[in-house]
């Protein structure tokens, strides 16, 4: 461990612990997932950065959206995101979750992911290289340090807005609201 970090560990142990134990959930949307197997295996080895993939949303706190999001997938993404324990972070990977990308003029892919769930960071590109995942993760470390990665608090605070947008696309949602909806 870096000698300079000891003071950080003593001051805010919770943030340091959150930083170095990001558990990414296996969630494949679109084509970007093809970059993730080399990232988590020996070629780039994401465990150096404390990122380990897990299978269940109840154990994860990092959600990587890897590629275009169709309307059917959005339903699964919202359910997955709501099941994850706090603190949780979302990173959009590739240009499609940002604004639709090359699927802008498509009848069944959503255009702006951050209307439906909060997103802490974006990785631009089509496709981004696997290294960009590590750049994003080190950015996320900085954001956690400074208390800027507050997507899950935003979701709680503006739940009415998010729920309204979700209902606009998906129609009647068949699960109860995660937080009470206040006016």
């Amino acid at each position, binding site marked *: 461990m870096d000698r300079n970090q000891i003071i950080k560990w003593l001051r805010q142990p919770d943030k340091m612990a959150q930083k170095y134990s990001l558990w990414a959930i296996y969630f494949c949307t679109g084509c970007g997932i093809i970059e993730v197997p080399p990232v988590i295996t020996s070629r780039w080895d994401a465990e150096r950065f404390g990122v380990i993939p897990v299978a269940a949303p109840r154990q994860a706190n990092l959600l990587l959206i890897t590629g275009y999001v169709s*309307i*059917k997938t959005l*339903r699964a993404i919202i359910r997955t995101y709501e099941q994850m324990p706090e603190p949780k972070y979302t990173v959009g990977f590739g240009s499609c979750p940002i*604004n*639709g990308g090359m699927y*802008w*003029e*498509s*009848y*069944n892919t*959503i*255009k*702006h992911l951050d*209307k439906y769930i909060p997103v802490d960071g974006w990785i631009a590109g089509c496709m981004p290289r696997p290294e960009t995942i590590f750049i994003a993760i080190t950015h996320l470390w900085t954001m956690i340090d400074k208390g800027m990665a507050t997507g899950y608090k935003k979701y709680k605070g503006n739940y009415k807005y998010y729920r309204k947008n979700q209902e606009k*696309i*998906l*129609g009647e949602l068949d699960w109860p609201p995660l937080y009470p909806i206040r006016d």
Partner: protein
Amino acid sequence: MNKSLKEELESNFKDIQVNIPEDNRLIINIKKEQVLNVLSFLKGKGYNRLVLISCVDWVKIGKFELIYHISSFENGLHLMLKTKIERETARFITVIPVFKNAQTYEREIWEMFGIEFEGNPRLIPLFLDRWKEGPPFRKDFDIREYVERTFGVTSRSQEKEEKE
């Protein structure tokens, strides 16, 4: 191989056009009444694999073109049976009696192009999730307008027009 099949088809059926664009490929244009006959004839010849049914929307002449891709494992020939049906009524008969796996392909075409296949027992939504609009693959379906209305986005060109 393909030349003998061409002669055989032309001698057996009327109103049939056979083109040979490549060595192991045949394009067969037929009338819509003949589809079942030609398909069962070819199946008896050993072309017993229906690869795909595809559809083209010729909106200017008011027709749908259905293309039945058929191949054989024995000689590797790829046949494309093309037929045109009316766009207005958009009804056709099913080919399930000849090829059973046509069911899913016809279901997809029913969903994306809105063509009703008489005799298909299971025309229910396949890919689209709670879809309320018209069939999205038809040429007169305005995707841009749908995207702007549903997802609340505006295109760059429209923004420019508004500024001017």
